[in-house]
């Protein structure tokens, strides 16, 4: 009888343990029963907890420029005994046509190309007169061994000449980094409690191509000092504006000088090369001068750049918070208290003097 009582106590205890193991753990405060996908912990929080580091690059840019080019070529063929095979004569190296005072570029942009969209051919030999081209005249004289134009005209020579004119735009690209606009972003991440490491500056080569923006290659090359994340920014557009407007209801005008930039940011995990966050951030600096145009006001570029940089960092913070990378605390500006005042409940028509 005594044994069965001990057995029953033992069984009850065992059953309680099994039941407690199967049961759901008690909910903590703030925890919901259903898993909320939007209630995930921000990645930034995880980074903070694990003491991971972020490298913020300077803002990379590619600046394109286009120049109008005009190239003119002429080549001649001589069909005469004892005359060497034809070699093209480039007008760029000789003299220009006297009747067409056009600029001829000395660059070799189109020089290697023999085809042209609009080649001009002298099909009628009467159209071409060597005397019109002193350079050709000289070369003819040298090759034929003649000294005077008269003697040259007496020689039986078949000349085929081809003149080519080409025009178009030559684009040139310049690669580099803007160093002024990243400091505020680094400061923002430091303020948020993250470990920010310095990235090595990227130096473009003389024949730099678009591989300048190949951030994965840079990560592999170890340019970010073994940072866990790289914040990589490429300048989309940067513009400087200067506008003047009249202020309605006044005799004054308002001159608005602005510096605006758009930067394409990507936050990349250096281990997996996964893009953790990606967005287009905007920064703008503005200086307003009342009646500034009339007084020939000159804006301070330093002030505009500082404003644009701070504004860009604020926008970056907002996007990082939107994409769950940082907590929204650093992204949200301070909200002023509700304005609602206590309405006056007494009659204001009588003068009252309040003393402390």
């Amino acid at each position: 009888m005594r044994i069965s009582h001990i057995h029953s106590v033992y069984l009850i205890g065992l059953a309680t343990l099994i039941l407690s193991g199967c049961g759901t753990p008690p909910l903590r405060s703030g925890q919901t029963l259903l898993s909320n996908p939007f209630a995930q912990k921000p990645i930034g929080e995880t980074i903070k907890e694990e003491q991971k580091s972020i490298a913020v690059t300077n803002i990379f840019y590619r600046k394109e420029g286009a120049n109008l080019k005009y190239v003119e070529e002429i080549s001649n063929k001589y069909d005469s005994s004892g005359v060497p095979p034809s070699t093209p004569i480039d007008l760029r190296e000789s003299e220009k046509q006297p009747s067409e005072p056009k600029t001829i570029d000395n660059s070799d942009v189109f020089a290697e190309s023999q085809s042209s969209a609009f080649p001009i051919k002298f099909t009628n030999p009467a159209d071409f007169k060597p005397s019109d081209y002193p350079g050709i005249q000289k070369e003819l004289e040298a090759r034929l061994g003649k000294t005077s134009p008269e003697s040259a005209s007496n020689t039986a020579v078949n000349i085929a000449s081809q003149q080519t004119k080409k025009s178009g735009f030559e684009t040139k690209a310049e690669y580099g980094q803007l160093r002024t606009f990243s400091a505020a972003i680094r400061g923002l991440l430091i303020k948020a409690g993250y470990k920010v490491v310095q990235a090595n500056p990227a130096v473009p080569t003389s024949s730099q191509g678009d591989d300048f923006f190949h951030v994965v290659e840079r990560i592999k090359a170890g340019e970010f000092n073994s940072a866990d994340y790289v914040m990589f920014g490429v300048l989309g557009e940067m513009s400087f504006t200067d506008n003047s407007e009249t202020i309605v209801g006044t005799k004054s005008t308002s001159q608005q000088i602005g510096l605006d930039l758009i930067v394409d940011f990507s936050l990349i995990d250096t281990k997996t090369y996964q893009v953790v966050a990606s967005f287009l951030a905007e920064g703008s600096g503005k200086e307003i001068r009342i009646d500034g145009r009339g007084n020939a006001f000159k804006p301070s570029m330093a002030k505009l750049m500082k404003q644009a940089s701070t504004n860009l960092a604020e926008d970056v913070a907002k996007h990082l918070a939107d994409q769950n990378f940082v907590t929204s605390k650093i992204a949200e500006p301070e909200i002023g208290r509700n304005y609602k005042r206590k309405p006056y409940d007494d009659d204001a028509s009588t003068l009252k003097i309040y003393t402390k």
Partner: protein
Amino acid sequence: MKLNHQKTSTYIFSVLAALSLAACSGPQVRYGDAKGVETISVDYGSTDLQSIAEAMARSLLQSKVISGSKDAPTVTVADVKNKTSEYIDTRVITDKIRTQLLKSGQVRFAVNINEMQSQVDELKRQNQSGLYKNSTVSKTGNMQGAKYRIEGSISSIIKQNKNIKDVFYIFNLNLINNESGLIEWADEKEIRKTATR
């Protein structure tokens, strides 16, 4: 007997002197009730001004736009057109409405177009004279734009014959959302005044 006659003449003289002094002193001045009903003529008067302003302010404060707003919305006063044949200073009406709304604490007002010159001059003085400490300067470019504007009109219909003159005033006011262009609130106040001989 002679003494009595002398007393009487002195009395008459002093009464006459007092009357002549009173005649020289001009019209009598007294304070009246500013909110008292004025019925001197059928023309637009102080009672009309007060009743219009009070009705409009009360109606506006009861509107959903104002009473249902989380924060005190920013409003500016635009034009109130006078379409009557009388001279009516409509700014007095809007100023009175604005005062009553501001006293309620439920609305904030941005400076209107008539007050812009002084606002611009002040900003220019503070920002561009170089005389002020930078941290205390009210910076250019931080003025708050009004979310709503108030505009309206006052019109009248006058009819009269030999013995009767009837004037009908209608004052209407609209609250317009500056961004969307939607008229969020509108109300009107009608006043009829009749004068008989």
